[in-house]
């Protein structure tokens, strides 16, 4: 570059760019850099536009899923005799209910069954039904949805009917299939794969109040009652089916 040229008032863009690329070795290095950038950029762009973007977009878009529950019920029965005005707590250890691998405990159903003969027999035809009160105790020993509004935690009967109590253990589980909005199958099933719910000890408190007709009873004095407590535990495993 001569000094006369340097004193020019204005230069054309071609002159200016030409100065930047005036050294051959520098141009070779720049060409190699451009090649590296093109290869790297092309590779990044190809991977992103062909697969990665679509995958990410798919993961970001919620689909509708039908969550179906495959249910297995495990039952345990305990039969004991209550004296008049006796209150007893019967405990059921939840790990004694057997389920296939991968099942979660969804709900517990407790059926308190009075003695079938308590409403009069040939020996004591005018015997009356006893009054039975039952409730599922929340003493912190069982991980369950104690605040679920459809729970039936206590019941009473004096007409020899069964008392049926229920407790939801798994959050949101009501036994019926549900619709869910999630990006993929994993995320759709995520709410249905929390372990720990339904673990612990189920305590059922039963109180008996014998109703008897003392003056007319011919043979026996009715002051006790055989009560059967049946516990049905519903276990489930969820599967997701894409709706749309």
């Amino acid at each position, binding site marked *: *570059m*001569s*000094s006369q*040229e*340097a*004193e*020019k*008032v*204005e*230069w054309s*863009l071609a002159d*200016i*760019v030409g*100065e*930047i*690329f*005036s*050294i051959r*070795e*520098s141009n070779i*290095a*720049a060409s190699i*850099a*451009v090649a*590296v*950038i*093109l290869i*790297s*950029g*092309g*590779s*990044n*762009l190809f*991977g*992103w*536009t062909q697969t*990665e*973007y679509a*995958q*990410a*977009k798919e*993961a*970001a878009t919620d689909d509708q899923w039908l969550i179906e529950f495959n249910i297995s019920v495990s039952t345990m029965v305990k039969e004991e005799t209550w004296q008049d005005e006796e209150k007893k707590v019967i405990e059921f250890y939840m790990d004694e209910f057997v389920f296939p691998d991968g099942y979660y405990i969804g709900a517990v159903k407790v059926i308190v069954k009075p003695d079938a003969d308590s409403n009069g027999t040939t020996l004591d035809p005018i015997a009356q039904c006893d009054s039975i009160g039952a409730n599922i105790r929340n003493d912190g020993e069982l991980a369950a949805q104690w605040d679920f509004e459809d729970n039936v935690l206590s019941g009473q009967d004096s007409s020899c009917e069964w008392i049926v109590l229920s407790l939801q253990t798994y959050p949101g589980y009501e036994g019926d299939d549900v619709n869910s909005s999630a*990006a*993929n199958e*994993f*995320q759709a099933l*995520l709410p249905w794969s929390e372990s720990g719910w339904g673990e612990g000890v189920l305590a059922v408190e039963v109180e008996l109040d014998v109703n008897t007709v003392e003056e007319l009873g011919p043979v026996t004095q009715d002051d006790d009652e055989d009560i059967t407590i049946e516990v049905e535990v519903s276990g489930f495993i969820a599967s997701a089916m894409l709706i749309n």
Partner: protein
Amino acid sequence: MADELYESLNELLPVASVVHIALGVMALVLVHRSSDREWNERFAGLLISWMMVILGMQYVFSTLIDYRIEQLGTGSGSGFFTYESIFYSWMTYGQSALESAFYASIAILPLIYPYPLIQKKNVVKICTIFVLSVALVLVPIDIFTEFSFRGVKYMLIWSGYIVWTPVYLRFLFGELLYEEEGARAVSSVTALLMLGAYGQSYIFWLQNLTGVSTVYFGRWVVEDFVAQSFLSSSVSMVQLALTGGTFLVIFLGESWRAMSRGFNTLNAVVSLVFVVGVLWYLLTLVNYGDAESCVLTACQAWDENFVDWYVFTFQVARFLGVPLIFMFILLNYNMVDSNAEGSKMITRIMVLLLLLVATSSLIEMIQIILPIPEMITSALFAGGVVVFIGWEERIMDQIITETSSAAESVKELVGVADIRIQDGEYRFFSMAMVAMVCYALLIAVLFHSMGIHS
């Protein structure tokens, strides 16, 4: 623990906003007093000063957003803070508008410094019109599109990759092969400008070059409130390669120079970034499962130590590295006349402010991972202050006396057009920048008050 960690992510933001604004304003004063500098030195100084001020204002909005995010789920009535209410607010609009203004400004820096591609008498006018036009269009469009075209917006800084890389190589080869005297001033300032403009991206150079970084883009598509568009994210893929490729050029160039001319501070900085980039690549591989969890299954939280590493590298590079490098360029490459009347004191304040803020911020960062009692960190900071005050005169002398002018070197080596720019044109540019900032802020406030996204 996780909450504490995410708080620590942004501890530097308030400090960064104050530092950027203070340094920018002081630099503006210095640049306006440096009337005897080459036109492109003075114009570049002016531009860098305004970039610092705009960045600082942008960080003010980022700080406010962070503060609101901490209050998520609190408040009542119309003041109840949800992520949506923050995303579509004057804070995010303001932050984004100033970011657009910053990109419009930085786009012209490679065209004028160190080697001016625009050598016309009306260069300042051309650049002013360009910056204003770009900002005028970009600010509202960015908000209209809910910031989903950031990758396209970032294309404005590609001018640096495209111009500075060949300029760096030209003058590096000129010095090393053809013994061109003064060429080092140009190549070193070009490398520093690239480190200043892209330093926070360069620390990811290896994962960007190999394409490993794309895993983060996949996660962001899932996680972001409004995901980047296909076009935007695709453009970002090319930018990843540009980042990795251009850093490799600087690293190899500086290593080659170190072998023939000896090791210097710039080599140390570039080598540090190189090592950090390799570590980032390895740590991304280690955390690859967490990174891609969003796409494959469900988003997993980042490892705590990985978050600390991010704070230490990216945030420090962005909030401390950028002002340090740009101020060093301003002071060391003769852009400002630090000997002018009254300028010496401002320069002295700038140097001390930079050093003290950097020290205190780094000590703060160390406290995140090491449970050092405050008594000890205070003592360390006091020690730092004493050392800097002791060294201040020496540092100042070095800055004032050992400056090198890249513009002079370019003039001598390849020649540039003899252009005279009137002081009024620089003032016009500054007025245009003020107008651009006001426009950006006004748009943010008006768009929010009119509820364009509600």
